[in-house]
């Protein structure tokens, strides 16, 4: 238990630093922004109390905001995603439910399951984030394209991380 908490705290810090020090400085295109830090919410243990999920999501979002000068924006999107997570997990649940002592990772539930699950989670986060960022529906299509392309990029980085960092 303590080990899991400790590991999550470290993951929180590492993902935050990767996001603000590395990824926010990689300039690809106005349509491609990777937001790798959402991996933290994706990987939270199944048994996490739902309120704790929301509070940590808020803390993660606000930390990213402090670095990017967009107070409240990432917090909103991350809390939104965390709120819908239990529901999404129940939709994608395997027939026998989730087994105890397992985590939402490729290693335990396979590539297909993880791809679908992380794709939906990242999409929810990005759609909230990008529409809050422009704050109107005038350029609906160009913003939507931005959501789609960034979702694909973020999801690919998340999937890759499963093979490079979290092999077990």
């Amino acid at each position: 238990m303590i080990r899991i908490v400790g590991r999550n705290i470290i993951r929180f810090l590492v993902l935050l630093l990767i996001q603000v020090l590395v990824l926010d400085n990689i300039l690809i295109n106005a349509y491609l922004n990777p937001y790798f830090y959402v991996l933290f919410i994706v990987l939270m243990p199944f048994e996490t109390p739902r309120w704790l999920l929301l509070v940590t999501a808020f803390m993660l979002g606000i930390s990213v905001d402090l670095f990017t000068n967009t107070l409240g924006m990432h917090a909103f999107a991350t809390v939104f995603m965390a709120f819908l997570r239990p529901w999404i997990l129940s939709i994608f649940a395997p027939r026998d439910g989730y087994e105890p002592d397992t985590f939402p990772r490729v290693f335990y539930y396979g590539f297909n399951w993880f791809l679908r699950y992380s794709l939906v989670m990242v999409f929810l986060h990005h759609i909230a984030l990008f529409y809050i960022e422009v704050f109107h529906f005038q350029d609906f299509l160009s913003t939507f394209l931005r959501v789609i392309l960034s979702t694909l990029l973020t999801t690919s980085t998340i999937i890759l991380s499963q093979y490079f960092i979290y092999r077990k």
Partner: protein
Amino acid sequence: MKTLLKLLNKYSYVLVFLVLETIAIVLLSNHNYYQHSRILNTNREITGYIYDRIDGTREYLSLKMTNEILVSENSNLRNKLADISLNKTELSIAEVQRLSYYTPARIVHSTVHKQLNYLTINKGRKQGVMRDMAVISEEGIVGIVLESSPNFATILPIINRDFRLSTKIKKNNFTGILHWDGNSPQQAVLNEIPYHADVQIGDTVITSGFSAIFPEGLHVGTISDYSLKEGNFYSIHIQLGTNFNNLFYVNVIKNYLQEEQRILEEKIKQ
């Protein structure tokens, strides 16, 4: 009472969600550049320090290019100096009161490909950088100082959706509002130029000096494309002079007459 508690327990999750989202929205709507925030100032010192450390590496990689820019800036200044000594008599008025003061600064952090981009520079209140000062680069204007803490300052660049600036076309003095449409960091949009104005691709756009922040006549960019909108106005695309992808050094301008102009304008409003 018991049912109420039960209900609360059942929906506490939704309640926490709503409370957190409300906090986020409140933060989002309050955090604009008219509000000073102590927390943000402390935070700028910390994040500024971290970015300053990290930026050292980035700087090394671009030393060669920075050198070239400095050399060309040097020669430009020498040329201007030569001009001044030639026309010394014409400058007597400017010598009575110095209009502006330039503070060089290095960019320690910047974003380019977001909708709300910001820059952080390594000069702050201690070096005399205050909010509402103009920021320029060798190639053109960069933005406006939003907030400054003792050693760092945040800049609202042209490439932020909140940015607005009064500019004019150099050759015929038609003024319009410059803003950014969120697409390319090299392009901005100039509106409110009436359609009877003579507009050509390649025309130079400069600051109008109406806003008291930017002195008149600073280079903004050149017209790259224009179309006639519905109504009687052009929608003009401007190729910005400043290349935000490759910006390392800027100058902050303190306009000594800004305060005077602001006070005068406020008197009229009352």
